């Protein structure tokens, strides 16, 4: 069964450093998403991406964040200058169509630790 994959599973970085989190969505999916979950808190929507552009983003997704689909398979989340409060699990998801009609399939997550 096809699945969303994410690498790395755990990333440790120093405050102020740039990190890139990678995701490979399911191959015939057209919509891509990033969510984050700070330990002990709710899962929060960051951004959705369709047709090579951002379709929606939350207040959390400020200028420090960017997303890219550099080739036909990868979908990346870049944090330019990490802060301590960026420490969280980051989940990538993909869906065939708009989310209200189609299930979002989630990857296993990347645990980001900012020191």
């Amino acid at each position, binding site marked *: 069964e096809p699945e969303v994959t994410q690498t790395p599973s755990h990333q440790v970085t120093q405050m102020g450093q740039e990190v890139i989190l990678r995701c490979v969505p399911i191959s015939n999916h057209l*919509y891509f*998403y990033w*969510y984050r979950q700070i330990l002990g*808190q*709710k*899962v*929060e*929507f960051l951004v*959705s991406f369709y047709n090579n552009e951002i*379709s*929606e983003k*939350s207040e959390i997704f400020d200028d420090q964040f960017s997303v890219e689909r550099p080739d036909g398979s990868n979908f990346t989340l870049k944090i330019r200058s990490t802060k301590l409060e960026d420490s969280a*699990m980051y*989940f990538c*998801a993909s869906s065939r169509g*708009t*989310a*209200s*009609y189609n*299930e*979002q*399939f*989630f*990857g*296993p*997550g990347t645990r980001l630790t900012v020191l």
Partner: protein
Amino acid sequence: AQTVTQSQPEMSVQEAETVTLSCTYDTSESDYYLFWYKQPPSRQMILVIRQEAYKQQNATENRFSVNFQKAAKSFSLKISDSQLGDAAMYFCGGFMDSNYQLIWGAGTKLIIKP
């Protein structure tokens, strides 16, 4: 603003018994979609069940069923014949005013006692 509330941080149930997890939400939309996701210790989010708000019939998936009360804005999940593998965090969520942004509740940790 759209919100999803899960008032039970933790629930426990004896194996083979039935348990109900509550969820309430707030939206001014009339058409929306609600979901329950399960997050086992592996941390992967797995869809359990979904409900379209325009459907009056409650969704069911094998041992999982929902009690959707649209007027009360309530969307509870019933798990029948609980199994050890059901132990996980359960998140209620929905697409309300957005087709992209899934709004999540805080989660309920379900413990299954053997």
